[in-house]
């Protein structure tokens, strides 16, 4: 009989098995979320979606946990992921930088009833470039010119369309290396939304979506990919989240807004954008090309998606309370992390939306 103790192989396998079982055993202390024996205090909420607000949400839910003990686990999987997961019901709330399309809304609502878009904060998309001798903010672009660059209709930096708005800048006689986002993203959604508004050519040939068919040249994976390409390839242009451009000290362009002023992306300019747009009650509106004089033109809300009809009273109530906190007390955490806080008018409409969240017909929270 083979002595198992002497058999190294069995020994190693047994060790791994024991370890795994031990880990798994230690890993299941709090049980499943549906356990009714757990005290009401230790509520677990899971949310997933847009990467853009993830740093803010991480901060929020860390603070919220210290405040109330509720564990809100938010993970960035992308706006599209946020929409599909809330539709499938694998998470308690979703998050997206792009408004749900009619088809997406129909699908979600057919499964779980009406769904709400609640804005949490807004952010800008910076247009970055790599031109030697031209520092941040010096390059001026209009929406039309930007669209034509991305349409590959303007192919050189010293094209008259660009030089005419930049008198005094020495622009090289070189091809523009155009960098786009290769992964679908809310950033692309906001960027293309703007370009569609300012260029009918762009609207008809490319369109507004999280992923589009760019005529060229190079795709970067994520903000890091785009920034990396722009930093390395001379005479290139790209677009990234403002936070990314700021934190990594990238040179960005000043864009001409709808009021005719050239504005650099900044927190103030981001907040102003919401003040130039009329907000519908369902808050499904894009903030691009705002008419406010000081607004930056490429701005977007980021929303949290929740169903009106909640299936679990405790979780639904915790969710509603968390959202209420986020649009009020939570806003004080936005600016230190370079996110714009919500304007007053936005908060009022968001409040109404949160108050409409129900369990079995009854609203879950009151003012």
């Amino acid at each position: 009989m083979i002595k198992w103790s002497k058999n190294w192989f069995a020994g190693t396998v047994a060790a791994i098995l024991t370890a795994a079982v031990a880990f798994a055993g230690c890993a299941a202390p709090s049980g499943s979320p549906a356990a009714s024996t757990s005290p009401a205090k230790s509520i677990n909420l899971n949310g997933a979606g847009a990467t853009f607000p993830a740093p803010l949400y991480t901060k929020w839910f860390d603070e919220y946990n210290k405040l109330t003990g509720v564990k809100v686990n938010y993970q960035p999987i992308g706006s599209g992921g946020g929409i599909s997961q809330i539709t499938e019901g694998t998470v308690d709330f979703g998050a997206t930088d792009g408004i749900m399309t009619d088809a997406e809304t129909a699908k979600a609502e057919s499964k779980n009833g009406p769904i709400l878009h609640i804005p949490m904060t807004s952010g800008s998309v910076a247009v970055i470039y790599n031109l030697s001798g031209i520092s941040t903010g010096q390059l001026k672009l209009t929406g039309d010119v930007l669209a034509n660059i991305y349409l590959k209709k303007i192919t050189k930096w010293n094209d008259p369309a660009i030089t005419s708005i930049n008198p005094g800048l020495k622009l090289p006689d070189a091809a523009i290396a155009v960098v786009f986002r290769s992964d679908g993203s809310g950033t692309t959604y906001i960027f293309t939304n703007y370009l569609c508004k300012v260029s009918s050519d762009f609207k008809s040939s490319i369109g507004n979506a999280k992923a589009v068919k760019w005529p060229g040249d190079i795709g970067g994976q994520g903000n890091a990919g785009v920034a990396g390409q722009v930093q390395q390839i001379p005479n290139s242009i790209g677009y990234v989240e403002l936070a990314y451009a700021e934190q990594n000290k990238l040179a960005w362009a000043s864009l001409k807004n709808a009021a005719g002023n050239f504005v650099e992306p900044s927190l103030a300019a981001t907040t102003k954008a919401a003040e130039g747009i009329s907000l519908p009650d369902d808050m499904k509106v894009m903030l691009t090309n705002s008419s406010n004089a000081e607004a930056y033109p490429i701005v977007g809300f980021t929303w949290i998606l929740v169903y009106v009809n909640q299936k679990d009273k405790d979780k639904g109530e915790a969710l509603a309370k968390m959202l209420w906190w986020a649009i009020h007390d939570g806003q004080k955490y936005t600016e230190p992390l370079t996110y714009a806080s919500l304007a007053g008018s936005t908060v009022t409409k968001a409040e109404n939306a949160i108050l409409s969240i129900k369990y079995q017909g009854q609203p879950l929270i009151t003012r």
Partner: protein
Amino acid sequence: MKERSGYFRRKQFSRLMLVLCGIATAFVILVLILILGYTLVNGISYLSLDFITQPSKPVGEVGGGMRDDIYGTFILVGLASLIALPVGMMTGIFLAEFAGPKAASAIRFAADILAGVPSIIVGVFAYAILVRPMHTYSALSAGVALAIIMIPVVARTAEESLRLVPNSQREAALALGISRWRITLGVIVPGAVTGIVTGIMLAVARIAGETAPLIFTALGSAFGVQGLTQPIGALPLQIYRYALSPYKDWQQQAWAAAFLLVILVLGINVVVRLVSSRRKK
């Protein structure tokens, strides 16, 4: 004289080729040093005992570590191994010892195809069969996804190693009247142990660093390990998210974590090999 110069040329050629082999090895090690060095340089500010023992902090707050994600990685690797090792080893044994040529060919073929499936697709599959029906992300689904990636590697390397054990061993044992299954487990497998362990370690190294399947199955957890049927965090997932984030703070943590991951895998490698080589005569 002619023979001597012919031999001399052959010997020169032999020396040349062997030097080239040495250069090839040096090149590989150079690349490793470049990558690992770059990783270390970028993450050094975060490498400390705190990193291993502290939970993660939101951006803007200095410090914090990846304790929960390290724990999560161990659990997922353990879970995946629990599923993949029996399946892979038994398949390898079947292919090497018991299968007829046609069956072996077919199964080997299937293993090679499975080995070529992009990890993201495995993740999507695990999502469809586990996450969606269960209406929750879970450590279980992540473990299953990783196991599917491990199985073909373990199976094929086990098979190749087992086949190289000389037939004389089998014949001698059979002559002693030992039953086949005892021969396989007691003689052949130990005889192929270093090869099998290599295969297992390669598979473990691979899944310890896999991100794509985890995106669809584990989700990630801000509050540590909550249970087998709850979302769970893991090092590669966190590395991926932090590395592509805007904040230098998080980026540095990503590099530090990557370095840590490599050291962890190396550690497992060393331990397992030590155990197996001490046993083997």
